[in-house]
C-alpha cells in the first residue's frame, strides 16, 4: 500500500494542454500531413456559372494528360446510384452535377492523377459546355410566382423548401395588439463562413483484397460519417473505418459531408489506391457550408414602462442550392426559437420559411448551437431598439425583463426549459468592470462636442449540449455521447470519446475529469478521439455539446469504474464493501484513514489479484443521454469611437462576463472566449459571403473574406460568474460558442448607440467603414 495517489485537485485548474507538446514542434498530424503508399490525388472541376444547363462534358483531353488516371462525371456516379447524396437536413445534394449546375463553384467532375499538379492540369483540361440560365440570387425574388424553378429534381414546383413555426400565433398576435408600444424592424444576419485555417479534405483508402475502406477525413463527427457512408454507399459498416486526425479548426465547417469525399471514395474503389482530396481556400469559402443568411422581421410589444409582452418573428432563410444545414431533424431552423433570449416573454411566435437560391448550399451552425447566433443577435438588437423607442437605458430595460433567478427551471413561451441562470449578476458585474456610469458621463460630454462614442450591451443566453435524444438526432442517429475508460494494471488510463476536438483542448480537459473522478494524475490519463475503430459511438463535437455530453459521460464512466474499484479495494483492505469510502482521492476504511489504497493499487489488483467471483479487469463504457440542454449566459459590454472622416469604428474596450457553470480548465475557457469574441468581431465589422447579381461569389479568398489580424483585434477583458447546471454531473455548461453567439449584438449596439444622435436606429452587419461613412454623409456629417 505504498503507491502514493495524486492528492492535488485537478478540476478547475489551468492545467497546461497535453496536445501542445506535438503542435508546437510541427508534429501534429493533420489530414494533408498523411501520405500513404501508392496514394494519388483528386482535383475537382467546378462550375463558373451560378445557374446553367450542362450541354456536354468532354474528358478526352484531360485523360490524355500524363499522370491522369481517371475522370469521373455525374453520369458515371449516376450509374453507381451516387450522383446525389442526402444532406444532414433531409434534402439531397448533387455530388457531381448532372443536367444543370445550381451555383458557382459547384462540383462538375473529378480528376484523379499521380500527382497534385497532374490532377489540377487534368481538371483544367475537362471541357464543359454550359448553357447559362437566369440566376436567382435574391431569396425574396426566389419566392415570386414567376421565378425560375431551380430544383427540377423535386416534385414541388417551387423554390420554397419548408415552413416551420413555433409558439402560439394567436396569443402573440393578441399580446402585440394589447401592447402600448410595438417595435418593428428588419434585421439581417448576413451569410458568413466558418473558414477554419485548415481547409477540408480526405484520403479514401479502399483495400480491394479485404474490402475495407479507411476514410481519413477532417470530420467533427466521425461516427456519423461512418454510418452515413454505410447507408449511402452500401458498404457494410464494419468494413468502414473513419479516422479524423488532428483538425486545424472546425467551427461547424467540418460537420457536413462534401462531394469531394464521396468522389475520393468512389475513385479509391475504382482504382484500388488511396485517393487524397484537399480543397483550396477558394473551394472552402465558395462551396462548403456557409452559415446564417437569415432575413428577419421582428415585432416586439411592450408596456410603456418597459415590460415586454410579446415577440413575433418572421424569417426568410436563404439555403442556397440545397438545404445542407446540419440541424436535428425535428428542428429545420435549429434552435432559432430560443429567440426570447434572457427575457420573460408571456407570449411569442416564430416562423421561418426556407428558400432555394443559386448560391452555395448550407445553413450550418458556425460556432453556434443550431441557429442560436441568429436568435441571440435578433433579440439583443431588438431590445436595444425598443429601449431607444421607450427612451430607456438599455441596461435598465434588460434588468427589468430578465427571467429572475427564482424562476429557474424556467419554461419559455416557445417551449424551452432553461436549467439555471442569474442574468442580472452578469450584467451588473460587466457594467461595473467597464465603469459604465463614468462612460455614460463621458459620452454625454463628447456628444456635446459632436463626437461619436457608443456603448453597446448584449446579455445573451445560449442553449447548448444536444441531446436529449428524444429531441435531437442527426439523420436519425440520436444525439447522446459516450466515453470508454480502460485503467491499465499500472494505474495509467486511456479514455476514448465519441466527440472530436478541433482545438478545444479535450485531450486535457477530459483527462482532468477522468483524473478527478479516479484519483489519478492528469498526465496519467490519455485521451483519444477520432478513430471509429476504437472510440465508442458518439455524435461529435459542435454546438458546444462536448462538455455537456461527453464530459458528463467521462465523469459517469469513471464513477462506474469507481464502483467496481470499491469492491476490489474492499478485498485489498479486508473490509466490508459498505465500509469502504472514497475520500481524498483514495479508498479508505470508514473512520480509519490509515487503512487506504489508491486507484493504482486497485488497478494492479484488478489484473493480478481480483477478488474471487469478480470479473477481472478495470474498464467501463458509458453512453450519456442528457436530461436537458445547458443554458450558458453572460453580458458583453463594448465601447466604440467612430472617426467621422473615415467611418472607421474603433473598439476602445470590450468587457465580457460569461457564466458557463463550473469551469474545468479556466485557461482553456478563457481561450475559447477570446477566440469566439474575435470571430464575433469579424462578423460584426468585416465578413460577408457576398454575391453579385449574376451569382458570382465575391468572397472566395482571404483578400476578400477578411479575417482580423493581431492589429485590428481588440484586447478582450474577461471575468465570470458561476451558476452551475443543476443536471450536469459536474455542474458544467458548454462554452465554446458563447462569445461568437453573444458578441455581434454588443458591437452593433455600440455602433448604433454612437450614431443614435443622428437618428440612426439600425445598421446591418458587416459594419464596414464604407457603410458607416455613407450613413454619416447621408446625415450631413462630413468629418
Amino acid at each position, binding site marked *: 500500500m505504498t503507491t502514493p495517489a495524486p492528492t492535488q485537485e485537478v478540476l478547475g485548474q489551468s492545467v497546461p494542454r497535453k496536445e501542445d507538446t506535438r503542435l508546437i514542434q510541427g508534429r501534429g498530424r493533420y489530414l494533408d500531413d498523411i501520405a500513404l503508399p501508392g496514394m494519388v490525388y483528386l482535383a475537382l472541376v467546378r462550375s463558373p456559372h451560378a445557374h446553367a444547363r450542362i450541354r456536354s462534358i468532354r474528358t478526352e483531353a484531360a485523360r490524355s494528360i500524363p499522370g491522369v488516371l481517371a475522370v469521373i462525371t455525374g453520369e458515371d456516379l449516376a450509374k453507381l446510384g451516387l450522383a446525389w447524396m442526402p444532406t444532414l437536413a433531409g434534402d439531397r445534394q448533387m455530388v457531381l452535377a448532372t443536367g444543370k449546375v445550381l451555383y458557382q463553384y459547384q462540383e462538375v467532375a473529378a480528376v484523379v492523377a499521380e500527382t497534385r499538379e497532374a490532377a489540377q492540369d487534368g481538371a483544367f483540361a475537362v471541357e464543359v459546355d454550359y448553357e447559362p440560365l437566369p440566376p436567382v440570387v435574391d431569396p425574396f425574388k426566389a419566392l415570386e410566382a414567376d421565378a425560375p424553378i431551380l430544383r427540377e429534381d423535386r416534385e414541388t414546383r417551387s423554390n420554397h423548401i419548408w415552413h416551420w413555426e413555433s409558439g402560439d400565433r394567436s396569443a402573440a398576435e393578441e399580446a402585440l395588439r394589447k401592447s402600448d408600444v410595438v417595435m418593428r424592424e428588419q434585421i439581417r444576419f448576413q451569410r458568413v463562413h466558418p473558414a477554419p485555417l485548415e481547409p477540408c479534405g480526405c484520403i479514401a483508402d479502399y483495400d480491394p483484397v479485404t474490402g475495407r475502406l479507411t476514410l481519413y477525413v477532417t470530420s467533427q463527427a466521425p461516427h456519423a460519417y461512418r454510418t452515413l457512408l454505410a447507408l449511402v454507399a452500401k458498404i457494410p459498416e464494419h468494413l468502414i473505418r473513419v479516422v479524423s486526425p488532428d483538425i486545424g479548426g472546425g467551427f461547424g465547417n467540418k460537420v457536413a459531408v462534401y462531394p469531394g469525399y464521396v468522389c475520393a471514395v468512389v475513385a479509391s474503389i475504382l482504382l484500388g489506391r488511396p485517393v487524397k482530396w484537399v480543397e483550396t481556400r477558394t473551394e472552402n469559402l465558395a462551396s462548403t457550408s456557409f452559415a446564417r443568411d437569415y432575413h428577419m422581421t421582428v415585432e416586439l410589444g411592450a408596456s410603456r414602462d418597459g415590460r415586454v409582452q410579446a415577440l413575433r418573428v418572421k424569417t426568410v432563410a436563404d439555403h442556397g442550392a440545397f438545404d445542407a444545414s446540419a440541424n436535428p431533424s425535428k428542428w429545420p431552423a435549429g434552435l432559432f426559437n430560443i429567440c426570447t433570449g434572457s427575457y420573460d416573454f408571456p407570449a411569442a411566435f416564430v416562423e421561418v420559411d426556407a428558400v432555394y437560391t443559386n448560391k452555395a448550399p448550407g445553413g450550418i451552425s458556425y460556432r453556434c448551437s443550431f441557429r442560436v447566433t441568429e436568435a441571440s443577435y435578433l433579440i439583443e438588437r431588438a431590445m436595444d431598439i425598443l429601449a431607444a423607442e421607450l427612451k430607456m437605458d438599455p441596461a435598465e430595460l434588460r434588468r427589468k425583463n430578465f427571467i429572475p433567478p427564482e424562476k429557474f427551471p424556467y419554461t419559455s413561451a416557445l417551449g424551452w426549459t432553461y436549467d439555471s441562470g442569474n442574468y442580472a449578476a452578469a450584467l451588473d458585474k460587466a457594467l461595473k468592470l467597464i465603469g459604465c456610469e463614468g462612460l455614460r458621463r463621458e459620452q454625454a460630454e463628447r456628444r456635446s462636442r459632436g463626437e461619436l462614442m457608443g456603448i453597446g450591451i448584449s446579455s445573451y443566453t445560449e442553449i447548448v449540449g444536444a441531446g436529449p435524444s428524444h429531441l435531437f438526432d442527426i439523420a436519425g442517429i440520436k444525439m447522446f455521447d459516450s466515453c470508454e475508460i480502460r485503467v491499465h494494471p499500472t494505474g495509467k488510463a486511456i479514455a476514448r470519446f465519441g466527440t472530436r476536438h478541433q482545438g478545444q483542448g479535450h485531450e486535457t480537459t477530459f483527462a482532468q475529469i477522468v483524473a478527478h473522478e479516479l484519483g489519478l494524475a492528469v498526465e496519467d490519463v490519455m485521451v483519444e478521439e477520432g478513430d471509429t475503430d476504437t472510440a465508442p459511438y458518439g455524435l461529435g463535437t459542435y454546438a458546444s455539446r462536448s462538455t455537456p455530453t461527453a464530459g458528463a459521460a467521462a465523469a459517469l464512466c469513471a464513477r462506474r469504474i469507481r464502483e467496481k474499484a470499491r469492491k476490489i479495494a474492499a478485498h485489498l483492505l479486508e473490509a466490508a464493501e459498505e465500509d469502504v469510502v472514497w475520500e481524498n482521492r483514495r479508498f479508505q476504511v470508514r473512520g480509519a484513514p490509515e487503512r487506504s489504497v489508491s486507484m493504482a493499487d486497485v488497478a494492479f489488483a484488478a489484473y493480478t489479484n481480483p477478488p474471487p467471483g469478480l470479473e477481472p479487469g478495470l474498464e467501463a463504457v458509458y453512453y450519456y443521454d442528457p436530461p436537458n440542454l445547458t443554458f450558458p449566459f453572460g453580458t458583453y459590454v463594448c465601447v466604440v469611437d467612430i472617426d467621422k472622416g473615415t467611418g472607421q469604428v474603433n473598439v476602445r474596450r470590450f468587457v465580457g462576463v460569461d457564466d458557463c457553470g463550473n469551469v474545468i480548465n479556466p485557461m482553456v475557457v478563457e481561450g475559447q472566449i477570446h477566440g469566439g469574441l474575435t470571430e464575433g468581431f469579424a462578423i460584426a465589422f468585416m465578413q460577408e459571403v457576398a454575391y453579385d447579381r449574376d451569382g458570382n461569389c465575391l468572397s472566395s479568398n482571404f483578400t476578400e473574406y477578411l479575417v482580423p489580424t*493581431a492589429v485590428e483585434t481588440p484586447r478582450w477583458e474577461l471575468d465570470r460568474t458561476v451558476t452551475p447546471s443543476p443536471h450536469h454531473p459536474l455542474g458544467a455548461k458548454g462554452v465554446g460558442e458563447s462569445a461568437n453567439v453573444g458578441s455581434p449584438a454588443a458591437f452593433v449596439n455600440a455602433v448604433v448607440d454612437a450614431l443614435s444622435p443622428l437618428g440612426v436606429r439600425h445598421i446591418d452587419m458587416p459594419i464596414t467603414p464604407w457603410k458607416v461613412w455613407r450613413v454619416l454623409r447621408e446625415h450631413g456629417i462630413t468629418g
Partner: protein
Amino acid sequence: MTATELPRPTGRLTVSVTVNGRPYRAEVEARMLLVYFLRDVLRLTGTHVGCDTTSCGACTVLVNGHPVKSCTMFAVQADGAEILTVEGLARDGQLHPLQKAFAEHHGLQCGFCTPGMLMTAYAFLQENPNPTEEEIRRAISGNLCRCTGYLSIVKAIRAAAGQPVAG
C-alpha cells in the same frame, strides 16, 4: 480553328538547400512551390498550407534568416538557401523559449497557424529582442489565427522575450 498547343511547364530542375542544418538535393518540377517541397518531398509537414494567396502565413519558414510565406515561392528559387522550419526550432532536445511560452500561455488551440506564427515570431525577436506590444502585433499581422484572438499569442511572445506577463 484548332488551338495552338503550348508547352506544359513540366521541366524538372535541381534544387540544393539546407533545411534545419541538413543538406538536401532533389530534382523537382519547376512549378513546385517551396511549401510542397518541404511537405511532400522532405516530409517536413509542420509547415502548413491555409490559403494559397499569401494571406494566412501558416506556411511561414525562414529563408536565409528572413520569414517567407513558402506557398508563394518556388522550391527552385530557394536553391542554395538555408531554410529553418518549425521542426528545427528545438535544439538538442530542448524546446525553444518561444515554443515553451506558447504552451505555457495558451498561445495555440487547433495548432494549425502555430508553426508559421512561431517562425515569424522567431525572426522578429532576432531583429527586435525587446519589443512593445504594438510592435509584436504588427510583426505577426501577416499570420492569421482563427482560434485565439491573438491575446495569448502576444503574451507568449512577450514572455519569450523575457518580459513579465501576468498568468
